[in-house]
């Protein structure tokens, strides 16, 4: 897992690129899968569940996939809803699967408003107080996160994974 931190830093510094990070994250996740039964036998268990997807109208998913793998790498469970995901789907999945976190990705400025719809839908469904909403994607900013009332924005996958763990710990 410490290795993944090195990968994260190198990625941020442009020393390695998307394919290398994907391959490293996969190796790490496969390793973790082997260890899981052993850790479970000792009483350790996954410490949280996240559903993640690219919002409706948007089909960019490389960044979302990276975030997903990095969160998995931290030992959380991730439900991948894919791309072009309508707000209702995030909400129903969070409820049915008991997710602590909803992760939203958007690469198009025109699809960013869907993130606000998800926040509103979570409120309407009465899950806003116990489900945290994380958002990201190249055009997304901290200011936008504050504006729509989401909980966390991070600019990249390594920090997204760290934040996810932190949020699950708090809940």
């Amino acid at each position: 897992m410490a290795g993944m931190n090195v990968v994260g830093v190198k990625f941020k510094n442009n020393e390695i690129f998307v394919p290398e990070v994907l391959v490293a994250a996969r190796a790490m996740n496969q390793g973790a899968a082997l260890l899981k039964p052993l850790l479970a036998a000792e009483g350790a268990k996954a410490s949280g569940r996240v559903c993640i997807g690219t919002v409706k109208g948007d089909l960019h998913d490389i960044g979302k996939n990276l975030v997903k793998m990095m969160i998995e790498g931290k030992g959380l469970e991730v439900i991948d809803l894919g791309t072009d995901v309508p707000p209702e789907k995030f909400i129903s999945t969070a409820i049915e699967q008991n997710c602590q976190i909803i992760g939203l990705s958007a690469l198009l400025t025109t699809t960013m408003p869907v993130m606000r719809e998800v926040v509103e839908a979570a409120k309407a469904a009465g899950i806003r107080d116990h489900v945290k909403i994380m958002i990201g994607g190249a055009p997304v900013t901290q200011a936008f996160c504050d504006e729509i009332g989401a909980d966390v924005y991070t600019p990249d996958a390594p920090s997204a994974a760290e934040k996810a763990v932190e949020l699950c710990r708090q809940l």
Partner: protein
Amino acid sequence: MNRNMKKWLEELRQSKTKKPLPVLSFPAVQLMGISVPELISDSDLQAEGMKRITDRVNSAASVSLMDLSVEAECFGANIVISDNEVPTVKGAVVTSFEEAEALEIPAVGTCRTGIYIDGIRKAVEKISDRPVFAGMIGPYSLAGRLLEVTEIMFLCYDEPETVQLVLNKVTEFLIAYGKAYKEAGANGILIAEPLAGLLSPSMMDVFSSPYVKRIVDALQDENFLVLYHNCGNNTVQSLDSILSIGAAAYHFGNAVSMKDVLNRVPENTVVMGNIDPAGELRHGTPDSVRTAVRKLLEECSGYSNFVISSGCDIPPMSKWENIDAFFDETAKFYQEGVLKQ
């Protein structure tokens, strides 16, 4: 219209008042009161849209639709069409080496490629005051759409032979497609290879640049230029690989600093970019566009090989007042420069 395009490009490079060359076509839907689905399915509307744009703006050239779903659709990909956005692809077409082997190279003219080629043929008849560029996707980006964009990155490591097999097939198709545009009278073609902009320089050397070069070698001559577009994040690091393609000019996105690029490109090679099409032209204001244009020109107009452009395709619903401001501010800036001399 037949033109000596090498000469045209050299004149553009030497001009003291450079006209912009943005990737501007989809906003024609607003000028014509039509939807994106109508535009992408009718060659007359495409030609008319390009003509309306040339009537309105003083661009260095006319550029046709950057619709990166057309070629993948020909290979059997699922297309998602929406009213106000450019169409896109969902899902993979090839999921194994066997499927890559079985993948058939479609005939040029099938699916919407026929409409797009006709669109150019008709546009060339209408537009005579400036060159007309057709558009198509680059080989790695097309292979990515067929193998799925994240999956192809794994496959480059795990099964490079599958990726290369698909790359060879799409390259053969793209050469034939480009030739059809040439025969239809286009003065050149803009090849968009955004997905390769996420690769490391050494991977780009293996999985993108040699294939783009093959296309350039097959198509480019005095009367037909290849412009290379890449709006990915890592184009500066990969410039050596990108320049090895031998395109006539290069077009970069707003994820990179134009100045960084210009510092590393020979001064006789034209470089275009990179006003943020979404942030500025779609969502900005005339004032913010003017500020962005001026800032970019102040930084880069000292490089004689710089031509201002959008960083990528200008979205269909971009405000025309912003697009007009982009052209107006560029013209003003160069005019002021000329007056000072």
